[in-house]
């Protein structure tokens, strides 16, 4: 392992993290809900009351509109996607399937769960971090 200092962006990373944490706290304080993106999306695919569907759809809409809002104040940062269509398709399937079976993703378990000191979320976070590290190792260093 060597640290890629050239790519290291501590201030924007920490600042962005604070915003993410703030958003999660707002949703919990005002609405009493956990900001787990996969669970919020998952709830849209189920039969629920209109009020339940509405707040979920509004949250998703906010995420969708965020780039346009950001672009009003600053140029959107460059996005670099190295995966091709097939790999993105498989990645999406596994992410959706896994988050649903495992009851959460990086936001629900990683941000909210760890903040609440949930052991269950700590285990989930360690599992997806470990398999994420292993997958990138396999693809970047063993397969090529």
């Amino acid at each position, binding site marked *: 392992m*060597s*640290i*890629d200092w050239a*790519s290291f962006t501590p201030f*924007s990373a*920490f*600042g*962005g*993290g*604070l915003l*993410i944490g703030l958003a*999660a*706290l707002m*949703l919990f304080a*005002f*609405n*009493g809900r956990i900001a787990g993106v996969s669970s919020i*999306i998952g709830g849209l*695919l*189920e039969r629920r009351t209109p009020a339940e569907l509405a*707040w979920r759809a509004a949250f998703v809409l*906010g*995420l*969708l509109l*965020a780039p*346009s809002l*950001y672009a009003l104040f600053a140029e*959107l940062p460059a996005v670099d*996607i190295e*995966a091709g269509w097939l790999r*993105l398709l498989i990645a*999406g*399937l*596994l992410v*959706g*399937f*896994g*988050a649903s079976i*495992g*009851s959460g*993703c990086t936001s629900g378990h*990683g*941000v909210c769960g*760890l*903040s*609440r000191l*949930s*052991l*269950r979320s700590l285990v*989930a976070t360690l*599992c997806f971090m*470990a*398999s*994420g590290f*292993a*997958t*990138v*190792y396999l693809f*970047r*260093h063993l397969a090529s």
Partner: protein
Amino acid sequence: MKVLLSLLVGLVFGLGLILSSMSNPAKVLGFLDLFGSWDPSLALVMGGAVGIGMLGFASLRKRSQALLGGPMMLPTARAIDRPLVTGSVVFGIGWGLGGICPGPGLVLVGSGLGEGVVFVVAMLAGMGLSALLKRRSKLF
């Protein structure tokens, strides 16, 4: 009110994802490349989010009512079981393949990127598939 608040939360969350570069798959893969040339930035994203989160959740712990009314809906599951572990491992494999998790996937769609659409549609299919499986099998 709750709907407007959710919209605002989605916006702030999304701005955080963009500012922190969580919505840039290359940046995420740089973090997951622990055994190569490692970019530790995303550890600080987690640090910032969990830092403020811990303070906030601790101070909200005693509340029984949300500020806009209704109960505080905390997850009730405690079990460390097979679905939690297998699901999370599968999630991590997908995350490592694309460098995209659900929130950033939506931000990429909002940025007008076709790759984001492919990812999110596949993610929705994966969620649908798991709902089917949960109904049909006792495995999960």
